[in-house]
Structures are given as C-alpha cells and as structure tokens.
C-alpha cells in the first residue's frame, strides 16, 4: 500500500470503526503508527452503554494518545516524546512505542493543523503508515487535507433496514467518489467564499450558503458553475431542484466532507442533470461492515455484503467474521 496516512471513519456510532481499526492493525504488515482525531473518550459508550473496545495494537506500533489514557494503557510501552504543543483536555499528547501487544484508548488533537503535525511526528519515529481513528460519526478526518486515504465502516448501527443501509452507504460512496474538477489548481488558491466560474472567476457578496436567498437575483442567474469553500447544504440543493432542468449546473466543493445532502436530494439533483465535483478526491480503500446493531439486532452479513457489492465496486469486508477466521 502506497498511502502514508489512512483515516478510519464510521457512518454511525458503533458501525464497527474500532473493530475495523483493530483489523487493519492486525492485517497490515508495515511499521505502523496510530492516533485519533479528538477524544472519543469513555470506555463505556454513554449513548448505548455498550463497552467500547479499546484499540489493540501490536508490538512495534508507534501510538499517540493523551496523558490520561497513556497512564491507563494495558501494554508495555516506551515513551518516545511528550508533545507540549499538542494538548487535549486529557493532558499532553504522549508518543510511545508498543513493546508488546495490548490495548489502549486513543485520543489526539482536534484541529486539522495539529493532527497533521502529529502525523508527521509519528512518521519521524519510523512509522511507514499512520492510521487515524475518526471521532464519533464525523467524516472530517477523511478529508484529503488530513489523510491520504480512508476506510469506511458501516453496518446495522446505521439502520436495521437492509434497503436503507445499502442506500445510505451507497450515497456516501457516491460522494466520496465524485469527480475532480479539471481546473482545481486555480480554485484552491481562493480565499473563503462563494464564487461563480465563467470566463472569469467572480466572488458573490455572500459568505456562506445560509444567506444565498439574500442575493438580488436567483443564484443561477449569476452563472451555472458555482464553487464554494464552505459547506454544501441540503437546503441549497433542494432550492436548485425547483428548477425544471439543471443540465448545465455544476457545484464544486473542496472535498466530500463539505457535502451535507440527503440521498433523496442528491438523486433528484443528478436526475435533473446537476453535477457536484470536488477539488480533491478521496481514496476509499475499503468498506467494512458490522452486522450487529448496538440495540441487539443482527443483520445477515452475507446478505449485506452481497447487496453492497452489487452497487459498490470496492472491497467490502466483515471485520468480525474475518477476526473469527483468524483464531
């Protein structure tokens, strides 16, 4: 694998993100580093009261976590560095090397700048690939600004309705695999704002899409190609969907983590001819599934795999079964 950093994000709490991480750590035969974005805290999940699995890391792995969790670790490890400039509410970030296999709770800095700094630091201690545990159900660490590639965890936690599960997962995969905009170079230099792209690039007098209705004209009267540095909202696309045809309409965003639209809205938008593109695409390595719902239901994992494979052309793994196979 040619990636130096990989984020592992879940579509929902308990979608199996931690198991996925454990699975990769076990499977990947590389000098590895691992940390988390933000604090994913308690060893008992406060929402569902399910015990939250700690990350199991293997000998030689470089890991970074907050002081408090370092003290609670259940493995032998050698402290390599304490980062005074990377602080969390649970103390400074400690970088250490695992001297045997064992469990630890991960915590890392929240901000993009700091997590990138930490990734570099972990690499400097010899890690060839750094895994980032995404916090909660947020997709933001999968932004190509932070990590080179991502792994997506989905499963019964999202919904126990099989059709819904496939639809929601497929939708996110669609967004992740959006095409890159051709002239992304000139757009990436622009400061925050909303722009119309025609022969020239023109900045609109609004700061975000929250106020697009305050424009004098309908936004499409300014031009059909819109680039926005901030979030793309469901409301905005719904508003555009009122048009008969959106054939020439193209919306460009920084990357898929900026898109917050529902599957239905997106489907209608594309049906009418609208397109969404990104400045930078995200490399999706694999999708993992967890058939167990935190409320006790279980879906048929073969069925999920089969249904997802019909619509998604990416490796799909059941980390629990594979774990069983390994024993």
């Amino acid at each position, binding site marked *: 694998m040619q990636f130096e950093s990989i984020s592992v994000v879940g579509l929902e709490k308990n979608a199996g993100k931690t198991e996925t991480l454990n699975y990769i750590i076990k499977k990947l035969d590389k000098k590895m580093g691992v940390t988390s974005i933000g604090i994913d805290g308690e060893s008992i999940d406060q929402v569902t009261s399910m015990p939250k699995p700690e990350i199991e890391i293997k*000998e030689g792995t470089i890991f970074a976590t907050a002081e408090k969790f370092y003290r609670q670790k259940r493995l*032998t490890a050698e402290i390599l560095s304490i980062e005074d400039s990377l602080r969390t509410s649970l103390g400074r970030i400690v970088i250490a090397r695992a001297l045997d296999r064992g469990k630890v709770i991960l915590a890392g800095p929240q901000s993009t700048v700091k997590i990138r700094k930490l990734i570099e630091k972990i690499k400097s201690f010899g890690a060839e690939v750094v895994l980032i545990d995404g916090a909660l159900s947020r997709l933001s660490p999968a932004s190509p600004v932070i990590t080179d590639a991502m792994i997506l965890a989905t499963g019964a936690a999202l919904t126990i309705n099989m059709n819904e599960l496939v639809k929601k997962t497929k939708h996110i995969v669609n967004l992740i695999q959006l095409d890159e905009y051709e002239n992304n170079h000139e757009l990436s230099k622009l400061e925050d704002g909303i722009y119309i792209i025609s022969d020239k690039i023109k900045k609109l007098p609004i700061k975000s899409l929250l106020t697009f209705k305050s424009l004098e004209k309908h936004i499409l009267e300014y031009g059909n190609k819109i680039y926005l540095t901030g979030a793309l909202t469901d409301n905005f696309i719904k508003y555009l969907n009122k048009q008969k045809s959106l054939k020439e309409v193209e919306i460009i965003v920084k990357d898929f983590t900026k898109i917050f639209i529902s599957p239905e809205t997106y489907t209608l938008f594309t049906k009418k001819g609208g397109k969404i593109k990104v400045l930078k695409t995200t490399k999706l390595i694999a999708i993992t599934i967890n058939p167990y719902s935190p409320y006790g239901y279980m879906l048929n994992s073969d069925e999920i795999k089969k249904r997802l494979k019909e619509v998604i052309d990416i490796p799909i793994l059941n980390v629990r079964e594979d774990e069983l196979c390994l024993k």
Partner: protein
Amino acid sequence: MFEIDHLLNKLEIITPLGQKRIKNLIFFTKENQISTELDKIAETIEKIQKEKEKIEKIKTNLMYIKDISKTVERLKGDYILDDIELYEIKYFSLYYEEIRKIMTFSYLKQPALEKVIEILDPDGNKLPTFYIYDSYSKELAKIRKMKKTACEQEKKELFLKETEIEEKIRKVLTTKLKKYMDNLEQALKDVEELDFVLAKAKQAIDYGFTRPEISDYISYQGLFNPVIKERLEKEGKKYQPIDIKLYEGVTLITGANMTGKTVILRTLALSQYLFQYGFYVPAKSAKIKVLKKIFLISGDYQSALNGLSSYAAEMLKLNEILKYLKESEQVMILLDELARNTNPHEGKLIVKAVTRILNELSSISLITTHFNNVADKKIRKLRIRGIKKEKLTDKISPENITEIIDYSLVEEKEEIVPEEALTIAKLLNIDNKLIDTIEKLKKEENFHE
C-alpha cells in the same frame, strides 16, 4: 514602559524556564546585586566572542529543555512518579548534562546529574526515551517474555503481575531520585540563569550596549534610545547619541519643539531600568547611581485615566511622587513638560514650585519645560542645541528632520528658553497668513515693551 517591554520581548530566550525569569524580573536596589549581574554578562560576552561554536552547541541543547519544576516538586512528598514523570526527568537530565559538559560558568553551580541518568537509563543507551526497563528486574523480564506467547487469559494475569512489579520499581526509582532532588532543583535554576544571561549578553552585543560603572551620580557618553535608533536606521537615517550628566537635585532641560526632550527623558528612564534590572545600557560609556525607584511622567494621560483631564491625571501622578518622597529618597524623577495643559501663568508657578521642592531632595530630577523664568541661579540648566543655523533655509519634513536638528545638550548659566516655535512653523511650511499675523503680533508686543 513601552521601550523596556520591547527590549524584553526581543531577548532571545530559548527555554520556558528563561521565560519565567523575564516575568519575574527583579528591580535591584543594592550595588553589589547589580555588579554581580553585570559580571555574569561580562563573562558570558567574553565566552560568546571566544567560544562561538561551544555557545551555539549550548543553545541547540537548550532548545530541548522543558520546565519540569512541577515534576521535581513532586519528589518532595510520598508521591510515586509515573512513567511520564520519570521520562521527563530523564529527558531533562540528558540535555542538561550535554550543556554542563560543554562549558563551565563561574556564576552557575552546575551540579552533575549523571547519577540521575544512571538511575533512569539502566542499559546505558543515552536515549531520550523511557519505560520500566527489563533490566530493572529479572522477574519482570521473565513475565514480559512469557506474556508474548501466552493465551488471552494468561496474558491478563501476567499483565497484572507486570503492573505490580512495575509499580514497585517506580517506588524504588522515586526513592533513589529523592537523593538528587536538590541537584535537580539547582540544575533547573542553572538553566534558567544561563538562558537569561545568554540572552542579555547577546542583546548587549547586538545593540552595542555598554557595561555601566556604578557611581554616585549619572553620566552618559553617547546615550541612545535603542528602539528609536533601530527604527531610524531601518529608514536609512542616523541617530545622534547625546552626552548628559545628572546630579542630585533638579536639572532643567529646555529646547524647541521636536528637538527630542521627550526622547531624552524616556531614554534616561529606559537605561536606568535596564541598569537596575542588571542589564548593560545603551551608551558608549555610562556611570550610573543606584536608585530606589523611577518615576516618569510623560505623554497625555487623558486616555489612560477615564474621565480625568490630562491636567488632573498629571497632578494625581505628581501627588503620588510627592507622597512617595516623604517616605523615601534616592529616586529618579523625570517630568516631561509639567503643567503644559493648564494656563501658562499658573503652569509656570507649578513648575517653579515643583522645582524648588525637588531641588532640596537627594533624588535626581529632570524636568523639561517651555516656560520662561521658572528657576533661580541655583538650578542646573541644560539646553538642547536645536535647529542648525545653516539649515534654517531648508524645509522640514519627517524625512529630513534628523539632519536639521542638533540634539546635543549645552549647559547654560542663564535660563534661555529658545523661542523657535515660529521658526519651526516656518520650516514646516505652515499657512503664510498665520505666520504673517504671528510676526505682526510679535512686533507689536516688542514695541509695547
């Protein structure tokens, strides 16, 4: 004071320990304290000049030093240090030892921390990393080895055992380290001192500061304001340093507008502060008296004290000084155009009265004024030379002002307040009608006299 803050900010402090020192700067009032500080700078400047490479090496190692005083503090109680704290002590000691071995400084105690490193580096790897090493205990090594091949259940039990042994070892290590607590505390103080003195010495070299001589009066040759000098030089202009002597009692300074009265006061205050904080001073040579306190009244106070006029604010500040002088003497009082914001008649009386009172005291006072006839013969008077005669035809602009004015001081027997306001107005190219009217009025006034 702005200039002092500026200079302190520019000090090239490397460690958080040195930063702490800047925040707790001491204003020394004893001669021996100040000369001790100056000796340290002198020694360090010599080393910077003679042993460049070694000093650079020290600085590189200082970059790794962290403030572990809280961790060292914990050694005092019954607390058992955890891995993170043990790591911090080892890390500090390794870099501290690097620095200690490079060079000795007479003003540092430089206790050895080799034993501390030995305790925390049983394998002698000299690496800035830490864990409870296998070599601390044969049993620990054995358990860890077994743990690697054990099944899950066994592993859990072994881990508990391992934790138990580790905790015992931490207790032993903490006890051993207690013996070196004083050394660790001294080492922290040494690093703080070294970082601070290195920065002071570097600044003295960079800015061309000099070591002041301790004296019972004040005398500067080539006194300059480093902040203004730096700014002027950036604009390609020259700064004119001045010579000045000050004795007990009052010295009055007169000079036209723009001739640098305020700068003289601020520079004297700055230099006095630096001296009493144990720094070199901005001059070619300097003799300075150790004083108890510095008072500087300069600038418009209206904005500083809400609701008060600048006159009222100035009076309150003056009152504070007079009150202080009742308790203590030997202070420096610098008053910039006292009472300038009230009517000239009473303003003059205020300056006269303040001059009279301050001249009786064994403090050093310097007052700038535009008023005429405020001092009798006993009061020492200095005048800023001001506009150069040959430059009278030039037009003044912010670009050439430093070339037109001679900032040096002359001692005067008689009180001469230069009436150059009109001259300067002309040089500034102010509206002709205004200038003409003023000249007309002036002629009428002379005629009536």
